[in-house]
């Protein structure tokens, strides 16, 4: 753990001395032939490797979509697993081109890290998981509990705020990685495990008896998760931002991985614009005309990505909720492509 941080810090110091910030990320990525993408060390539904080393998840699909838009080949991604506390240093030092690692958008991260959030891929909130045998039904009954948490997260601060605001005492035990945290919770070191609610459902699958544990109803924070890029390269910022918007727009228009070719042939002016048979928005981004088609072929639209990784079509089975489209009661809304 420490060695990784140290290496990244040295890389950061060296990188900062060697070159100024006028990065041409798109060119670097094209020259390298690979997109370097920072992901988690294993969070089912968001980014986790299978037994063959293939990465899947919502955050992974963002990387795949960007690689699809650039190379027309979603496999051209190098995944860099990062712990919560190493992630920003990895982005700052140029180790990764984009950080797609269930990271909460906050003002301090947006302003003091030399990086920008490009949008929200998942609207989350922090929750609590307990053993059913404790017979606890609300987070307000958790006075004097021991809480396991992963260090280096907004979770840790929300936790302190919540217990203080509700005048409750607690003991915090902070671990370096998600797996260590879950293991300590399972070993009984703490009564409560806390992280973003999506993470609770994902981690519950890792426990020996998922049925013995329950997620409490309270959501104590706003956790909009999204990808991050470095400051100083507006073109790259646009590419990552509009990749997500393209995924949302295609869901709005009913374009899916299966019907995209057919839709591209239709004489609908909006479809023609979005799918690149009309106009040159892709070229303005520094990509090809058919960038949206490439994205949809790579991963599908936002709805497909959600269902496959965390939604109804996945073991997690999380409701769309806030993550539904704006016109279906959710918050996902993309500015128009025109």
């Amino acid at each position: 753990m420490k060695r990784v941080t140290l290496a990244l810090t040295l890389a950061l110091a060296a990188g900062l001395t060697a070159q100024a910030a006028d990065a041409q990320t798109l060119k670097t990525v094209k020259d390298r032939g690979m997109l370097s993408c920072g992901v988690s060390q294993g969070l089912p539904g968001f980014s986790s490797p299978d037994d063959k080393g293939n990465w899947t998840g919502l955050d992974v699909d963002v990387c795949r979509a960007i690689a699809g838009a650039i190379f027309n080949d979603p496999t051209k991604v190098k995944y860099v697993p990062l712990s919560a506390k190493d992630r920003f240093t990895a982005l700052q030092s140029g180790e990764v081109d984009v950080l797609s690692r269930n990271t909460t958008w906050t003002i301090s991260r947006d302003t003091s890290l030399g990086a920008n959030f490009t949008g929200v891929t998942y609207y989350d909130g922090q929750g609590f998981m307990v053993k059913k045998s404790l017979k606890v039904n609300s987070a307000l009954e958790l006075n004097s509990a021991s809480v396991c948490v992963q260090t280096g997260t907004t979770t840790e601060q929300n936790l302190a705020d919540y217990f203080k605001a509700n005048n409750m005492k607690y003991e915090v035990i902070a671990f370096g990685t998600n797996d260590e945290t879950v293991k300590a919770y399972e070993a009984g070191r703490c009564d409560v495990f806390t992280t973003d609610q999506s993470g609770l459902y994902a981690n519950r699958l890792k426990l020996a008896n998922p049925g013995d544990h329950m997620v409490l109803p309270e959501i104590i924070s706003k956790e909009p998760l999204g990808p991050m890029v470095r400051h100083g390269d507006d073109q790259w910022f646009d590419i990552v931002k509009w990749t997500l918007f393209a995924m949302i727009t295609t869901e709005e228009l009913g374009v899916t991985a299966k019907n995209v070719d057919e839709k591209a042939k239709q004489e609908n002016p909006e479809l023609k614009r979005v799918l690149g048979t009309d106009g040159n928005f892709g070229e303005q981004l520094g990509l090809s005309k058919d960038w949206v088609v490439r994205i949809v072929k790579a991963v599908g639209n936002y709805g497909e990505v959600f269902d496959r990784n965390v939604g109804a079509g996945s073991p997690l089975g999380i409701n769309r909720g806030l993550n539904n489209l704006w016109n279906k009661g959710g918050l996902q809304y993309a500015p128009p492509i025109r």
Partner: protein
Amino acid sequence: MSIEARKPPRQIALKIRRVLGGKTGWNGIAVQFAFAAVLGWIAYEIVSNARANLENQHIAAGFGFLANNAGFDVNQTLISYTGSDTFLRVFLVGLLNTLVVSVVGIVFATVIGFIVALCRLSPNWLLARIGEIYVEIIRNLPVLFQILFWYLAVLAALPNPRQSISLLGIAFVSNRGLVIPRPIGESGFEAFLAVLAFGIVGSVALRIHARRALFQRGQVIRIWPYVLGLLFGLPLVTMLVAGLPFSFELPQLKGFNFAGGSRIIPEFVALTLALSTYTAAFIAEIVRAGILSVHSGQMEAGSSLGLSRGTTLRLVVVPQAMRVIVPPLTNQYLNLTKNSSLAVAIGYPDLVSVFAGTSLSQTGQAIEIIAMTMGVYLLISLITSAVMSVYGWRISRSLGA
């Protein structure tokens, strides 16, 4: 014609030449200065460049963040700390946690190490084999693995707080740690402390007096009854006169955990156990080497004087062995201190965990925080070696070497 005596060369100039230039003289000095200037320039370039680039990229820099609110909690704090304290306070909390685990670990490692070494050297076949097996197993397994083993083993073996093991109804062991009654000072507390301090000072003075009498006049003075009286008798009398100096706050099960009392968290126990048993294996070998380096004739001389094996070891062999033992022992102490940074794996809030971990990701100021943390470890290590050097020097002096 008279012969003039040659003037001795000026000593100070020679000294400077030797210190700075080595054998090459003034040329060497020039080279050294040039080299130092180049190094200084490179360091300056790195710092100023990094600073300028951080500013360009709007990455926060400088040590101003130390005064900001930390906003997170820590589960073992030796000084008072809440989430609304500053990052500087977090730094101190983490530093103290690192120091306490290092000091306790060093004490245990030394004791266990000496015992295992004596076992290995023992003429008793069984003891010698046990010592050997201990050393060979423990020192050949990675220490991180041992820390995780002790942590998960300790946790798995212990019940949850509601079924905790009660020790006489005043202390409780569970997977939340060991809870013991906490002493709270009462009215007679100051008087008690003063008497105790007097007893300690008096005992030390007595011992110095007795040693002087032994070394200068060959006179043996028996001091232990007086020491006993000073250390235990006097405080007891004070207690009888002034009443109990403190009362105990008993831990009680409230909700999920124990309230009241003092608690030793399992992370601390596991980390100390793992670090001290691991380092003890190395110390045992160092001690064994040190004792074997003393000529076997010394042992025989001791027994021919009628001293028991233990007394010979204590008075004759170990003092001579210490000269060989101390330098590598220092290395092991430094290793233990540095290995304590593996604490983050089991959630013990040491300096690396709370400062180079949590604080780093809350503030994002990697360069400053890592530099501070490295500086602290360097300082701790230098102080440890300095203390051990002084100790080694005193041993050499007392042996007349």
